[in-house]
């Protein structure tokens, strides 16, 4: 087998120079002739009926070119999920009712922002205010204000249920009977936001020929095209979503957003390009954040720590529309069942409508919430049973080849190695064992561990990725992919794969990406599947080219295909390097002798290629993914017992991400996730009161700064291989590592000072309260 030259190497990012030199063009940089500014009018009511909208005064403002309301739309609903069970539930512009403060009611296009805002202030909306409810547990109780009718298939005496996931196996009651120790705890996770630096931004330009060109800050152009076309009533072929650089997304830019729809419709109305850039305050107050969640977990174990039964109940606060609420209650089931063997399990999750802004995925999409609960409780159980946190995890960890209850196989699973390696690396047992009575003084240290597992590339529209690799006359390569690099480095790894398959310097692979018209379909850079799905598609496309080059070379050199070696843009016969042909020559020969074939390769890939559908969100039945990533993370913290401040001193991540295509990027992803989790743990919180955000700025919403970042170390647990010409199974690396570390921090705080935290964030105030209690 030949050595790897590009894959598995610490190759610098393709997009780096553009970004560092300021050459990168983001959506806000797009300036077209005659471009108008769009602004959106939002509801000041958490829940109200719209009785009337009068736009006449707004239209008179000089510079205003168009005003649109729900009446100007086709009234076609959309949703993060659009399935028969969960049909679309949101109008792009409110029609009859508003269900959260900030819901979009009208939009204006004008020659400048002053005119646009003036017009917004002159739109007169008559509302009939309705009672509102913000807390999901209150919203579920019969008698609460009805935001939407409860899901017809949920037969319990509950209201405002957007969806329910129920699953299980074995017999939990019998399991609890059989258990030596049973405990139940409730954990709450708070509301955070993604914190991408580039705001939501869209430029839409409806051309005279009927084509709608769109640049938008997103996580993939194809889903945007599909939803824009649907809600605007245009054929998909009339909508072209083009590439612009994206300044971060973290789950917050996936499906259709109203500003995208409005920019498009305003452009259609005015025949001029329209730009809408959300203000940071709008993003904080009216856009989608992550998922706050209540997790109740009851666990029964044997004396030796073996889990015999686990029962879960989760409640999400989905906001005024479904958003990804019905997805997260499904996903957390998966995050509960993946890492450990649970012989008897019962799960129910409720997604509850409230009069809050809509929720979306956020990096980890439920995993931090679920792992925080399970891993915190596991430490409590271990302490009760006198078992070490390492042993209890090893006891229950899944191993290679294990089948999961949903029919998935974990394949090569490195979880146990992750736990063992990290314990050794951190000298966990010795540090953990220092008794609290020995810890004196103001600052006290502690160590904690958590584990997690994450899926990759599950089936969601558009379900597959295709890639085209073209040889150029000069022997260089063009790579056409619908994948969008949102800062996570997808273009770089796709180039590495093509470079490897074709043994061509990475600089000679040019990427053309993320244009719905000229590049092939792509699953998008979410559901953690790009490196696997699009990566394999790129490998196949490059392999296609490789085969063609090989055939011609074999003919011309009069050699057996097996004896041909690819190296540095040449093909030669093994042992006879003088008998060789350059790629340039091979392309010319192909055109000459293969009826004009200019050597173009196609590749496509799909997760679980024989599964027609994604799993049921309601019952969890059906396959979920074919590659699970596993990890163990430790946190070492220092608690200031006077102020209650906790500092994360060091995070270590032992990860089984399959095969790291670019170790540098893997480490970058891990470090980024550790710092994100640090923000989650200690400082970031959207403070809301009755549907209104109290801290809608970077100043009052505290993301960690460089002063807060902790040491982050990595341990590779490599379970897969990359071989030229063969499919590979690389696993997820972009989301899973925000999870275990959160639990590890909570466990480390307990180890340091004996304060057990049941809710995030771990504020100094909570720590002080806890310390006071145990004094």
């Amino acid at each position: 087998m030949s050595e790897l030259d590009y894959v598995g190497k610490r190759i610098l990012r393709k997009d780096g120079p553009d970004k560092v030199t300021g050459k990168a063009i983001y959506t806000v940089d797009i300036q077209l002739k005659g471009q108008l500014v769009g602004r959106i009018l939002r509801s000041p009511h958490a829940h109200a009926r719209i009785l009337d909208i009068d736009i006449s005064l707004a239209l008179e403002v000089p510079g205003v070119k168009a005003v649109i309301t729900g009446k100007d739309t086709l009234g076609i609903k959309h949703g993060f999920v659009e399935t028969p069970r969960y049909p679309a539930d949101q109008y792009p512009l409110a029609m009859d009712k508003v269900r959260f403060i900030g819901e979009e009611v009208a939009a204006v296009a004008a020659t400048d922002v002053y005119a646009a805002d003036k017009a917004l202030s002159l739109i007169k909306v008559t509302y009939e205010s309705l009672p509102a409810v913000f807390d999901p547990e209150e919203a579920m109780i019969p008698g609460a204000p009805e935001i939407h009718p409860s899901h017809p298939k949920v037969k319990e005496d509950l209201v405002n249920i957007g969806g329910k996931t129920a699953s299980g196996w074995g017999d939990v009651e019998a399991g609890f009977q059989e258990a030596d120790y049973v405990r139940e705890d409730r954990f709450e996770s708070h509301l955070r936001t993604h914190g991408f630096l580039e705001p939501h931004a869209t430029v839409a330009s409806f051309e005279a020929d009927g084509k709608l060109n769109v640049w938008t800050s997103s996580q993939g152009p194809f889903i945007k095209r599909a939803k824009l076309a649907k809600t605007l009533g245009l054929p998909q072929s009339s909508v072209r979503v083009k590439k612009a650089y994206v300044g971060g997304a973290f789950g917050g830019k996936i499906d259709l957003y109203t500003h995208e729809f409005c920019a498009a419709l305003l452009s259609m109305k005015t025949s001029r390009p329209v730009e809408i850039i959300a203000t940071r305050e709008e993003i904080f107050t009216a856009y989608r954040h992550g998922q706050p969640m209540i997790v109740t977990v009851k666990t029964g174990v044997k004396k030796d720590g073996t889990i015999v039964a686990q029962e879960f109940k989760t409640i999400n606060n989905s906001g005024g529309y479904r958003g990804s609420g019905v997805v997260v209650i499904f996903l957390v089931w998966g995050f509960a069942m993946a890492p450990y063997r649970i012989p008897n399990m019962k799960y129910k999750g409720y997604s509850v409508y409230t009069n809050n802004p809509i929720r979306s995925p956020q990096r980890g999409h439920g995993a931090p919430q679920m792992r925080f609960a399970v891993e915190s409780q596991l430490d409590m159980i271990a302490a009760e049973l006198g078992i070490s946190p390492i042993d209890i995890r090893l006891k229950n960890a899944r191993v290679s080849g294990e089948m999961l209850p949903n029919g998935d196989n974990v394949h090569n699973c490195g979880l146990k190695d992750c736990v063992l390696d990290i314990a050794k690396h951190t000298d966990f047992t010795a540090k953990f064992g220092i008794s609290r009575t020995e810890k004196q003084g103001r600052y006290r240290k502690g160590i904690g561990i958590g584990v997690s597992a994450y899926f990759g590339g599950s089936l969601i529209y558009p379900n597959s990725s295709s890639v085209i690799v073209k040889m150029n006359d000069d022997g260089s390569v063009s790579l056409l992919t619908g994948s969008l690099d949102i800062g996570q480095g997808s273009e770089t790894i796709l180039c590495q794969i093509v470079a490897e398959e074709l043994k061509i310097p990475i600089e000679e692979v040019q990427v053309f990406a993320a244009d719905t018209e000229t590049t092939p379909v792509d699953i998008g850079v979410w559901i953690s599947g790009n490196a696997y799905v699009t990566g394999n598609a790129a490998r196949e496309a490059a392999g296609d080219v490789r085969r063609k080059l090989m055939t011609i070379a074999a003919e011309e050199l009069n050699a057996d295909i097996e004896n041909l070696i690819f190296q540095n843009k040449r093909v030669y016969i093994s042992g006879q390097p003088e008998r060789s042909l350059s790629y340039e020559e091979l392309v010319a020969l192909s055109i000459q002798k293969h009826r004009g074939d200019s050597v173009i390769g196609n590749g496509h890939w799909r997760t679980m290629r024989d599964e027609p559908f994604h799993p049921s969100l309601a019952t969890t039945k059906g396959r979920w993914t074919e590659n699970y990533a596993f990890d163990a993370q430790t946190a070492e913290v220092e608690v200031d017992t006077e102020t209650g401040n906790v500092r994360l001193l060091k995070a270590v991540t032992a990860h089984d991400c399959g095969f790291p295509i670019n170790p540098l990027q893997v480490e970058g992803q891990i470090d980024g996730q550790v710092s994100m989790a640090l923000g989650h743990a200690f400082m970031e919180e959207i403070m809301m009161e009755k549907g209104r955000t109290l801290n809608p700025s970077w100043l009052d919403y505290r993301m960690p700064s460089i002063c807060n970042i902790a040491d982050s170390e990595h341990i590779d647990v490599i379970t897969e291989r990359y071989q030229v010409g063969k499919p590979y199974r690389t696993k997820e690396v972009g989301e899973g590592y925000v999870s275990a570390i959160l639990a590890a921090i909570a466990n480390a705080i307990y180890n340091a000072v004996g304060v057990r935290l049941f809710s995030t964030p771990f504020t100094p105030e909570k720590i002080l309260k806890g310390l006071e209690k145990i004094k």
Partner: protein
Amino acid sequence: MYLPKFTLESPRSIEEAVSLLGSGEQTKLLSGGTDLFPRMKYKLCSPGVLISLKGLPSFPPQIDEERKLIIDANISLTAITLSPEILEKAPLLALAAQKVATREIRNMGTLGGNICQETRCLYLNQTHTFQFTEPCLKRGGKECYFAPKGKKCWATFMSDIAPTLFCLNASVIVAGLDGEQQIKIEEIYTNDSLKPLSLKPDQIITKIIVPKTQSPSGNGFAKFTVRKTIEFAIVNVGVFLETEKDLKTCKKARIAVGAVSEGPQRALEAEDWLAGKSLSKENINKVSQKAASSLKIIPHHGYSKKYLTECLKIQSKQALNDAVEGLADQSNRGR
């Protein structure tokens, strides 16, 4: 977000600035703009005319013949942290300036602007286009979102620097249509969140005067935040200690606290108690307790009163300890 439209005036003299200021209601002084511009973007004020202080003659910090320190109100916070005169005569001021916001903001922000900043409140410091649309008391309305039952505004005054000027017994020179006057720093504050400053619309602070300080003295400034940078204080405490020659007995203490009330506060009770006592660990603990329990504390930015009291105790102790440690260094150097 963007600024509303306005006219910019750049007077070349204080007199010209005063007369421009006094010419209409719609005028506002502009220094670094780091407090004013965000408020204008939020539409908390929309002055038609901004009178920039940037064009006025400026001067570096000076020590006059009476050993007083005279500082241009328009000095940037960065310049404060770098001035040898300030580091010598009023190091406490530099300690506080160093803790404000970030380097970029300190480069723009000025001393005058810092001590004249507006009070802050979560319900206030944002636009009100669809959230909190009904104006609260501070915006000319009738209700308060923060304490709905009362009829009072509770916005807090967050300057990090003002408390240290209290400690240093500073005064300000104010120029106005009625001429120039020197007033004690305490007097420019009203302790009214609605209008925290007593300055009249035509008045400009031109200079800050720090009187000759008794030596030996100790300085301490503690600012508590969550992320250590670009954040207003949860609470801040300035401490200035004058000691007897032994450097261990407190002759006079000045302790001032910011961010937890309508204006900076002196911890007078605590100060009196410490005077004449030894600066022992025990006494510092006690005086910190006293400071925390005797001062007014308004819960702000999501922090409860109980927690803020605890913070104040710890930060007072921190500032006092720093001051005492500084004294110990002096005594070591002296030897």
